[in-house]
């Protein structure tokens, strides 16, 4: 086996490595954007205005913060895995007062879900069978984003893209002049996809 063969093989392998790296970058820039579902739908049955008496471990950040966001993800839901993958590949999306409510039929499945998508760094609560989120907020759909202001639920949105839902601003309650809550800079209405 001559050196020439070895060097040619190495050169070809190097070209394949570079090609894969560039295709991977191209895919990360173009692929997901072309297929991502950017619709956001308000969940009408959610118990807006509710504030839990006691926050479970992992979600205390939502009770203390001026504004917080909880993403309800189920380990058995395909869309939730897409959302988890977004959080894994773009860690900056998990910045701020963001927490996860991981709904699962068993705690071991939640652990596996967290490890699979490298979600260890994000505060989270494992909600077996979704009992807590259903009882507290009437949420029975995932993935759902729960927006909080000072621990009070201000909006519940069914979504599929974290970046889109993070750009949504929660409604402002205008209690002083008696008006109903209004959405700020958000092209979304109850029960209608945008």
């Amino acid at each position, binding site marked *: 086996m001559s050196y020439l063969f070895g060097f040619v093989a*190495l050169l070809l392998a190097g070209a394949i*490595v570079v090609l894969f790296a560039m295709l991977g970058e191209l895919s990360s820039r173009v692929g997901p954007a072309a297929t991502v579902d950017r619709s956001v739908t308000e969940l009408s049955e959610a118990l807006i205005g509710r504030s839990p008496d006691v926050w479970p471990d992992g979600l205390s950040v939502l009770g203390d913060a001026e504004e917080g966001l909880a993403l309800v993800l189920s380990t*058995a839901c395909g869309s939730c895995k897409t959302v988890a993958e977004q959080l894994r590949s773009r860690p900056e999306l998990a910045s701020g007062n963001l927490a996860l409510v991981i709904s699962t039929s068993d705690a071991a499945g939640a652990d596996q879900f967290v490890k699979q998508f490298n979600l260890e760094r994000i505060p989270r609560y494992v909600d077996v069978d979704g009992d807590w989120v259903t009882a507290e907020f009437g949420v029975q759909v995932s993935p759902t984003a729960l927006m909080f202001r000072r621990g009070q639920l201000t909006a519940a949105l069914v979504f*599929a893209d974290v970046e889109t839902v993070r750009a949504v601003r929660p409604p402002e309650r205008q209690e002083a002049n008696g008006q109903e809550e209004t959405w700020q800079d958000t092209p979304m209405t109850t029960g209608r996809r945008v």
Partner: protein
Amino acid sequence: MGTELALGVATAAAAAVFLCAGLGKLAVPGPAARAIAELLEFGPRPAGVLVRATGVLEAATGVALVVPATRPVGVPAAGVLGAGFILLGVVARMQRVSASCGCFGSAQGHPFGLRNAVYGAALLAVAVVDTLVPYPAHPAQPALPLALTAAGCVCLSAWLHRALIISVLGPRARPSTPEGVGA
């Protein structure tokens, strides 16, 4: 013969890692530059220069490891890089860096941390063994490490981009729809 083969395979594996990492960083320096910028609090430009320089060094080390004439340079360079990865991994873990290391030019993957330190330790171990065990002056198959490294590069690259390969060759994903909580 057995020792020579084992040493050759280990060295070729380390060389493949260095080559994939180096060429990956040179082709797509952005993810590693973001990680370095977060870790060392550099601006984007110096971080990019540092990543490209590291990429050149890694690729050169990968080749030097498997060419007999350049092994005396390649082995210490591999050791220094391995030790550097250990140091960066530990520091990244202490600072709880959230960005992916971008080691192979991909933004996806685990955050910069202890896993990188473990990989660095493995590369350092190969360099130490290569230093302690004398490489034969006239190996039976002199080009075998080069061929093994080439094969290792292809396999490692395919593994690193398996999601892309599956998405291209596998079945088309169905549109996702909301599902029940706890389903």
